[in-house]
């Protein structure tokens, strides 16, 4: 009995001393490491492997290792440059639109007015519409030159109808994607606005700052961090925009709205060229990582400035 009671503190002391050194963490880490392996590394390695193969589903018998030929072919194809440019234009434009309108809407919705809650829900609603549906709504209900709402409005004003997807394909895609992503920016920035110290705005009022100065010197600096978060999050998703293009323009006319993602789709599922698509995918991964490095730098920078 006495032995048991005296042994207990000793055991506890040993346990304390051994913490962090003796505990085997492998079983605890293994599940997540395994999941990462299955979900990330395996597809990545497979993609790399396929990108070095001649592998076209239409000619399954002509398979074999071709080295970097797929890359050489893709990089010398002008479609890739168009696709990269289109991706940059689409991502940049939507980022710009969603940050500008997101900020303005957040500031507006942060004011007290009648029906504020309903307005907030309505503004955020487009975010919950899935991309193919959103694209279909815009294609058939809004931008259709015959029965679309926009055409009806412009025609009532005597301006005639615009064939959006024919004449302004990239602009149309940008409008649709921005419509979906402005709510996300608004949501993030609105919550940030709500954490803005009330007394800071009042202090600025006492200091003689008008509405515009308060926006510029108090609101914008306060929002700078959430804005970088919005840019980072949206970039991740905007680089992989696909459904909107598939449903509306199918990458055309010509290659006017073919982005990197869409190019991979064309290669893989329209030309059945798995090898070429994989090579394009690897290039996309490299480009996305370059963007990610810059983004992380920006985010780290804004964090440091506090």
């Amino acid at each position, binding site marked *: 009995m006495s032995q048991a009671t005296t042994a207990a503190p000793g055991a506890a002391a040993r346990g304390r001393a051994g913490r962090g050194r003796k505990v085997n963490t492998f079983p605890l880490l293994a599940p997540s490491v395994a999941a990462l392996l299955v979900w990330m590394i395996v597809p990545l390695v497979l993609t790399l492997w396929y990108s070095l193969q001649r592998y076209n589903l239409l000619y399954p018998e002509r398979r074999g290792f071709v080295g970097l030929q797929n890359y050489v072919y893709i990089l010398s194809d002008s479609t890739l440059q168009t696709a990269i440019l289109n991706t940059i234009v689409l991502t940049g434009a939507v980022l710009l639109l969603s940050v500008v309108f997101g900020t303005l809407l957040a500031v507006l919705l942060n004011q007290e007015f009648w029906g504020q809650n309903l307005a907030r829900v309505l503004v955020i609603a487009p975010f919950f519409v899935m991309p193919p549906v959103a694209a279909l709504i815009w294609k058939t209900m809004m931008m259709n030159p015959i029965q679309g709402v926009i055409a009806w409005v412009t025609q009532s004003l005597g301006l005639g109808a615009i064939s959006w997807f024919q004449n302004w394909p990239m602009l149309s895609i940008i409008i649709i994607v921005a419509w979906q992503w402005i709510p996300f920016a608004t949501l993030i920035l609105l919550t940030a606005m709500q954490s803005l110290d009330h007394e800071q705005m009042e*202090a600025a009022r*006492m*200091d003689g700052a008008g509405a515009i*100065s308060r926006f510029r010197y108090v609101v914008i600096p306060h929002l*700078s961090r959430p804005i970088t978060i919005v840019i980072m999050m949206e970039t991740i998703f905007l680089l992989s925009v696909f459904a909107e293009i598939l449903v509306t323009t199918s990458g055309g006319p010509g290659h006017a709205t073919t982005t990197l993602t869409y190019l991979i789709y064309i290669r893989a599922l329209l030309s059945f060229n798995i090898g070429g698509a994989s090579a394009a995918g690897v290039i996309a991964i490299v480009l996305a990582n370059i963007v990610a490095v810059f983004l992380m730098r920006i985010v780290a920078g804004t964090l440091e*400035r*506090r």
Partner: protein
Amino acid sequence: MATLTLNGVRKKYERFDAIKGVDLAVTDREFVVFVGPSGCGKSTLLRMIAGLEEITGGDLLIDGVRANDIPPDRRGLAMVFQSYALYPHMTVAENMGFALRMAGVAKAEIATKVGEAARILQLEKLLDRRPGKLSGGQRQRVAIGRAIVRNPKAFLFDEPLSNLDAALRVQMRIELARLHQELNATMIYVTHDQVEAMTMADRIVVLNAGKLEQVGSPLELYHNPANIFVAGFIGAPKMNLVDAKVAAASAGETRLDLGDGGGVVLPGAEAGLAPGSPVVLGLRPETLSFAATGPFRGIVRVIEHLGGESLYYLERAGGDTMVVKTGEAVFARLGESVSLTVRTERASLFTADGKAIGLRRDNPARAVA
């Protein structure tokens, strides 16, 4: 620098009246403290003076000019907020110079004025830091510096010390008093802490439920509270309030019956006091002392030794608690049954509905001073 006059100032919200008509004249270079329990409207009143809340009735005059409709930045007042409200992305110097920058003052002049304020507040070494890197006391000083730089007609403080720890609060209190002398400025200061009010104010304004309860110098309020609310709010530990009945009121003295057989004779008389009318006797803890016999009897329940002084909490027969403040010597033990006498010339008397009865002679503390 400035006088402020409030004539019947009111604040009406949809559901209730926050400020129910306040008349007050703040003279030049005065340090006025608004004090009251939370929700009494003291901050609202300050914000109305600042221009951050609309005045819904009455007039606010600054230097004799009606200022009700003048926007906050043109009233020439500067405010120090409870949360300091510093701009987190600006350096200390930028924070302090922001108002001047907004007013379009030249950069060199801003730098001079910021430097001057930084010297007064000993912030010179911190000028290019951001608020996030400062301690609570330093942030507080930056907030004050931001006010000083504007060279305002009057300073408004909204509970500026409530976010500081106790030691720093005492230090900042002294610093604020020093600043008031150095800047020679009119200051209005809001607090719920009566110690801050007592130590800093030239005049204290006691507010309760949107009304002025009493306005006067700290000692005036302490010795001659106008009603039970002020008597209970000013002074720590609180004034003892004892229910009593008038036994007899003759020329020169008033005899009170305490109900438990004890009685007290107060010097001075008041014509309206009929025998038998209920009154409340107000006794400051330091005016009570232990004695072999005395009008108040009770059992010692709690003793707090504070070093230089001790507080004894007594339970009287009816269950009421009385507090006695004594020197550091031990006068009684826990559970002991004791008697108390009182310096009757320092006692206050109130009617049953809380108004002070003017038995009072002159102010004893004034007589000494």
